[in-house]
């Protein structure tokens, strides 16, 4: 390596500090969830598990995590958020892949415009996207609900999948697909047996980030959800103004992180496998 030992040590130290800064606020959240005060004061005058007790059934909760959450509105909003994130990610995967293949394989008028168009939903501030979609949905007479939120989320998640895929397609050796056709495989078969395994990890990386984006999104969601739809971020927001119960959100924050560590780790492991990609 071209870096001196001292440079590497400095960089390592800097990175450790960086991660510490990234996690200190999360530790504050953890401590705050045990703070007896109902108004987020500091330092905690006393510690208490009352907020945890409000959220989780303890002990005696069955293996079903679902039943462990006592607050019904929280359970429902968690379910809604997961549902929306799932559908939005699937849609984004579909549309993003279609667009990525089209742009990579063919040259057509409006190709560069499409790249710009795909980026726009995420590049424009959420409040503008939210306002625009809200007005559009209302004028088209659509009822605001889960579907409209899925549509809105998918729109800005497309670019995540698109970019991951295009980057991978660029690095892929076209010779592999050509070899497959030479050996007599049809387009469909080539895709299934050759292309897909190669792009799978890129799709997964895109899906993971899309899911995270949609799960924690609140601005666009506020404008595109209806009377009976409440996502987790919306529940958290409304709970902050509910008298005497605001600190419950800290408990929820911790729970969500803990629950997502394992799935994210495994998803990340899957994206690391890159058979046949261009080597270093």
């Amino acid at each position, binding site marked *: 390596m071209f870096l001196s030992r001292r440079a590497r040590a400095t960089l390592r130290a800097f990175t450790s500090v960086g991660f510490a800064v990234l996690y200190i606020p999360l530790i504050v959240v953890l401590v705050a969830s045990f703070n007896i005060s109902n*108004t*987020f*004061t500091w330092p905690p005058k006393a510690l208490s598990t009352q907020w945890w007790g409000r959220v989780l059934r303890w002990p005696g909760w069955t293996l079903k995590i679902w039943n462990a959450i006592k607050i019904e509105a929280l359970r429902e909003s968690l379910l809604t958020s997961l549902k929306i994130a799932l559908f939005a990610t699937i849609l984004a995967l579909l549309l993003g892949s279609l667009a990525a293949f089209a742009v990579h394989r063919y040259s057509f008028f*409006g190709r560069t415009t499409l790249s710009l168009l795909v980026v726009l939903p995420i590049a424009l501030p959420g409040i503008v996207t939210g306002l625009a979609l809200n007005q559009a949905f209302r*004028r088209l007479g659509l009822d605001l609900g889960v579907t409209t939120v899925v549509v809105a989320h998918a729109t800005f998640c497309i670019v995540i999948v698109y970019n991951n895929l295009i980057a991978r397609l660029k690095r892929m050796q076209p010779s592999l697909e050509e070899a497959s056709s030479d050996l007599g495989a049809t387009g469909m078969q080539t895709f299934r047996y050759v292309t897909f395994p190669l792009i799978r990890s890129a799709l997964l990386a895109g899906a993971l980030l899309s899911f995270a984006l949609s799960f924690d999104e609140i601005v666009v969601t506020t404008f595109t959800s209806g*009377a009976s739809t409440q996502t987790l971020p919306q529940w958290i927001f409304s709970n902050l103004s*509910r*008298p005497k119960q605001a600190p419950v959100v800290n408990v929820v924050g911790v729970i969500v992180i803990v629950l997502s560590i394992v799935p994210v780790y495994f998803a990340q492991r899957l994206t690391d496998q890159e058979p046949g990609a261009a080597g270093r």
Partner: protein
Amino acid sequence: MRKGFTTAAVVGLLALTASACSSDKKADTATTTKAAEVTTTAGPATSSTTGETTIAPASDKGEGAVNIVAWAGYVENGTNDPKVDWTSAWEKESGCKVNVKIGNTSDEMVQLMTSGEYDVVSASGDATQRLMAGGEVVPLDLTKIPNYADIFDALKLKPWNSIDGKPYGAPQGRGANLLMYNTDLIKTAPDSWGVVFDAASPSKGKVTAYDAPIYIADAAVYLKTAKPELKITNPYELDDKQFAAAVDLLKVQKGIVGEYWSDYTKTQQAFEQGSIILGTTWQVIVNGAQGNKAPVAAVLPKEGATGWSDTWMISSKAKHPNCAYQFVNHIVSPAANAANSEYFGEAPANKKACDLTSDKEFCKTFHADDEAFFKNIYYWTTPVADCGDDRGKVCKPFADWEKAWTEIKG
């Protein structure tokens, strides 16, 4: 292919814009000018011979659901805390499933109501007149709300919840905007709003004010006494000179403000931590902070104060009018009103609610039947151009208040 892409883009744009224009024209002709002259609306509404909109559904049966826009804590059904529930029993009894959308500001509530997706709203006085003027809500058929009779007379048929003697909503409760201060750092209790408008205040940087255009009225309330030459009688009816004076005062205030607040958890926290030591507050915040042993106290200054009274209103586009009426009747009943006003922290509107609160001192603390207290309170109403007196139509409408507020905050 080249032409295809561009054509698709252009067609798409035109199509959407065209549909936007045409579908709105339909909605526009439906609700034109003032509420009294509304002719038709979509859905179950019908027009009566006098030209007013009423909702006259075919039968009295509930529609199975009711969509409500309300403040957080007004409509609790046990899903957030099983002990906090005054709705689920009624839901079962009436067969109307309650869907609540929490509005974070009363202005957001106006916005949501205009979409026509909601049946009932709990609107504050600064929003109710906009709803009434825009024809978004209907005058109530009191035969369907028997509990209305038990409401304090002082809250009935007020400018913010009625037009020409017809009630447009059922009161939920009321509260005043008091002046709170840190007793450790401010030794003598302030008796005038002047302390929050004082450029040389020793509390500089630790003062707070309510973050909404309607707060301009608070400055007017102070000027009514402090500058009698301005001849302010109603803090919501301000002509150019009076308005300019209030705005200037608020710009001075900005220099000493630490934070503007709209969410009371934040401001309670600020007072408890000591980052704010003086400013506008609600009784519920005082109680909360004192309950947490914070050194605070509140006063009603000598100039009086602004206050608010929320109103339950029914949408003119309600898709579930029967359930809507049944809900409003339920929410202003003694039991429900006692429960939700105690939970939220405001004086209840129903006289009989005071016997049903769990804290027997509740009504006393919140001055529920203390008309002498509320005599000096100027309830939030929407400022309109018509001054309502011999000045004519020279007062500043709410749009000007809103613009000014952005400029004040800078």
